[in-house]
């Protein structure tokens, strides 16, 4: 047999997930999530909506900038705004986040400046944003490696007795990596205050989730001794509530939690990918009807918390942010070439110091030639 056998429906069902908003935007009760919602502050609800809209707009701008040759690559997050914004808003500012490369909404919710969305994808720096200010590790490209970093960081939090947690974001494909399994082993062994957020967007480039797992991803964690929840990743309130639950567990010393957010990557894996080769339009169309922003907007309008004017105001703010991202991108100044040799070591390194000196002299030779010309 050359392909995996049929997978039980349960592993693929997108409806077997906790939610408090239906795809039509109707509030429904959920016994596990409702205690973590209580009476929601209208300010928070509006912020969730605003950040999702801003994320989608920045994401569209990043896509366009790549197509226009301004970015080398862009990994779209369209469709995943609810899990990114909902979970991040449930965190405290001190909580440390270890993201993967698709977490544009998490970066946004942490307060990134316009240039901090694009500098890595433009190739100006490996890390786009100020990791200290955002309390976020660099976006991780090696799949799943950072699940261990979050676990180790959480072990440090334990040793410090600090009221903080660590969070790792990764996709469904990452759950096939040994590092994610090892992170589940270590975090369970030490009861580390870490939350794993698996954005199950159904596809790891062209490999569907049923190639990754015979069971729902959330079903794996209990085997490691870690409680988990399968949550509707297109329901921003469900994502918010689930993270609050997980965060409280971690803070109370009850150890790690695994959240599987069932969502969908509406666009390609990256701008280098062609998803029409491996998935059909009907599937994308089905998910279009589950759009996280439309769903939440319907709910907010029904609650009287959003009207046409407010929607227009948020859309205008999104355009302004996108324009600022574009300006920062197009106006980026590349560092002097010799700096490619900087920041390899924290302490003086004789070999590299010599290499840098040689290359600086070599470059200076060009400058002298230009002066003479």
């Amino acid at each position, binding site marked *: 047999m050359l392909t995996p056998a049929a997978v039980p429906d349960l592993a693929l069902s997108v409806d077997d997930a906790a939610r408090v908003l239906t795809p039509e935007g109707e509030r429904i009760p959920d016994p596990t999530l409702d205690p973590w919602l209580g009476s929601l502050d209208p300010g928070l609800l509006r912020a969730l909506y605003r950040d999702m809209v801003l994320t989608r707009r920045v994401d569209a701008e990043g896509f366009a900038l790549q197509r226009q040759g301004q970015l080398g690559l862009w990994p779209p997050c369209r469709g995943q705004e609810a899990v990114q914004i909902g979970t991040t808003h449930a965190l405290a500012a001190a909580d*440390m986040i*270890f993201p993967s490369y698709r977490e544009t909404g998490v970066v946004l919710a942490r307060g990134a400046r316009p240039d901090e969305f694009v500098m890595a994808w433009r190739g100006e*720096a*490996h*890390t786009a944003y*100020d*990791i*200290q200010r955002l309390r976020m*590790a*660099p976006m991780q490209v*090696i799949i799943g*490696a950072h*699940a*261990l*970093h*979050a*676990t*180790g*960081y*959480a*072990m*440090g*939090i*334990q*040793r*410090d007795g600090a009221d903080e947690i*660590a969070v790792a974001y990764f996709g469904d494909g990452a759950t096939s990596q*040994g*590092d994610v399994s*090892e*992170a589940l*082993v*270590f975090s369970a*062994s030490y009861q580390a205050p870490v939350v794993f957020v698996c954005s199950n967007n159904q596809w790891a480039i062209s490999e569907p989730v049923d190639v990754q797992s015979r069971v729902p991803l959330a079903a794996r964690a209990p085997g490691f001794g870690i409680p988990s929840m399968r949550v509707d990743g297109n329901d921003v309130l469900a994502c918010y509530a689930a993270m609050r639950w997980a965060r409280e567990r971690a803070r109370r010393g009850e150890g790690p939690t695994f959240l599987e957010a069932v969502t969908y990557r509406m666009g390609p894996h990256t701008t280098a990918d062609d998803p029409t080769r491996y998935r059909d339009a009907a599937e994308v169309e089905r998910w279009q009807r589950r759009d996280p922003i439309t769903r939440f907007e319907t709910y907010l309008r029904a609650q009287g918390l959003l009207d046409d004017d407010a929607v227009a105001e948020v859309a205008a703010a999104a355009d302004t942010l996108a324009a600022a991202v574009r300006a920062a991108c197009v106006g980026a100044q590349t560092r002097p070439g010799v700096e490619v040799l*900087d*920041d*390899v*070591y*924290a*302490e003086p*390194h*004789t*070999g*590299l110091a010599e290499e840098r000196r040689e290359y600086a002299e070599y470059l200076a030779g060009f400058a002298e030639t230009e002066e003479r010309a």
Partner: protein
Amino acid sequence: MSTMTLARAVNASLRSAMMDDPRVLLLGEDIGKLGGVFRVTDGLLDQFGAARVIDTPLAESGIMGTAVGLAYRGYRPVVEIQFDGFVYPAFDQIVCQVAKLYYRTRGAVRMPLTIRIPWGGGIGAAEHHSESPEAYFVHTAGLRVIAASDPREAYVLLRQAIASDDPVVFFEPKRLYHSKGEVDTDLDLADEPPMGLARVVRDGTDVTLVTYGAQVAIALDAAVAAEDEGVSIEVIDLRSISPVDYRTVTASVRKTGRAIVTHEAAREAGVGAEIVASIAERCFEYLEAAPQRVTGHDIPYPPAKLEGHHLPDLDRILAAVDRVMDRPHTLAGAAQ
């Protein structure tokens, strides 16, 4: 000053580093109650507790990756890899994360990890227990690679490695774990030469013999044997194989005009290749003969009963001395 084995010297070094800095903690398999498979961490769990001497699950990438997270948090993890051949599952974390995070963040994240690896052959061990993987790490920018050659060196270099804000791969020649030497655990580290410097362990005028780790002792034996035949060998213990202290190496080669590099690891693209190439670049006009390499063969590590044919011994070094002296192979060391 007291006499102790290299294993005890490493133990004393860890103990003093942990006493000096509460951010230093140890992670590894069996390092707690057992005290490590070589008993190097013996007694540290009792003294410092389980929060600082962490017995880990059996997963090398997990050990390394969680150490990365602890370093993010400001800790200074010292990771024990149980045997050289077991470091490969952690290779991705070491080369992609540990080595690069400082560069990836332009200095915002420091990775002051020390990765201790019991290293090399000569103890008749089972498969995967006698590897010399140093070239993989030397080839990775962002890492420092250090090799201890005696108990005092192990004590001092390990203290310096733990104190360094850069990640250090620290090789402990397991063949020497039970060899004894004088160690002053009260010494002032500020008076010691930095770990990046090589040391001339024996002066000579005819040939420069560059090596590191357990091979230093064999090089010294070869120098004694060669002296009987009228050849004066200068032996350099690199101590640091990344970066290499080329100031010391080139000064010696310019004096002697002849260079040999010896190590246990295989020859192809090994540390010896790098050093010989650098000597050729820096000392070409001083050379009386082509520099030579005396290394392990380009083979997987052989079964224990055959490892004597793989590890470069005194006679293979002396044969190389004959080559650089341009004379027939007449020198002989230990009787075969």
